[in-house]
């Protein structure tokens, strides 16, 4: 149990990153590759927030003036992840729009079949 409590979050986020990497490595479908990148992004976000966590911490939000700041978790990774999520969705949309254009042009999303990508 102590192992679980120590590492389960790390296991979760690195599993996501590795699964995402695996998808990017192996899958030839462009949308699948983007899904993989999305999974990796989620994993990285999770990792950053996990790093900022401290045991028995409270959220970095004061609800009353008397609350002590000592027990708060680190707010900086949270702010970082907040922006990262929004940027992530914008970049994702851009990638998907490119995928749509690729599909319009080549009629396929299979990266192995798109010869023009070859240099």
């Amino acid at each position, binding site marked *: 149990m102590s192992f679980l409590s120590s590492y389960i979050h790390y296991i979760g986020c690195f599993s996501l990153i590795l*699964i995402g990497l695996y998808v990017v490595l192996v899958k030839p*479908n462009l*949308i699948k590759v983007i*899904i993989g990148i999305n999974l990796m992004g989620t994993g990285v976000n999770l990792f950053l927030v996990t790093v900022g966590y401290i045991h028995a911490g409270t959220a970095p939000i004061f609800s009353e003036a008397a609350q002590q700041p000592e027990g708060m978790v680190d707010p900086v990774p*949270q702010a970082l992840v907040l922006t990262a999520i929004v940027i992530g*969705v914008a970049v994702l949309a851009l990638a998907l729009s490119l995928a749509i254009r690729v599909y319009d042009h080549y009629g396929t999303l*299979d990266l192995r079949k798109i010869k023009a990508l070859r240099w």
Partner: protein
Amino acid sequence: MIVFQTFLVLVMIVAALAAARFGDLLDAVIACALVSLMASIIFYFLQAPDVAMAEASIGAGLTTAIFIFAINRSIRYEENEKTD
């Protein structure tokens, strides 16, 4: 509480594996949304309610919708994956 979080993480990993595995891209995207949802709940447990909100609305909501739009405009099923 840690047991619940472990459960969430396991569900998330299984969902991610499913997203990697499914040949139907729509299924994969739904699995992806599940991953985001689980991540969102984990964020909440990690005392990051702001991030949890963002992940829930953007990761689980908008991203899924955008994926679905894209699939709608291209193809739904992954091609036969011949390992080369």
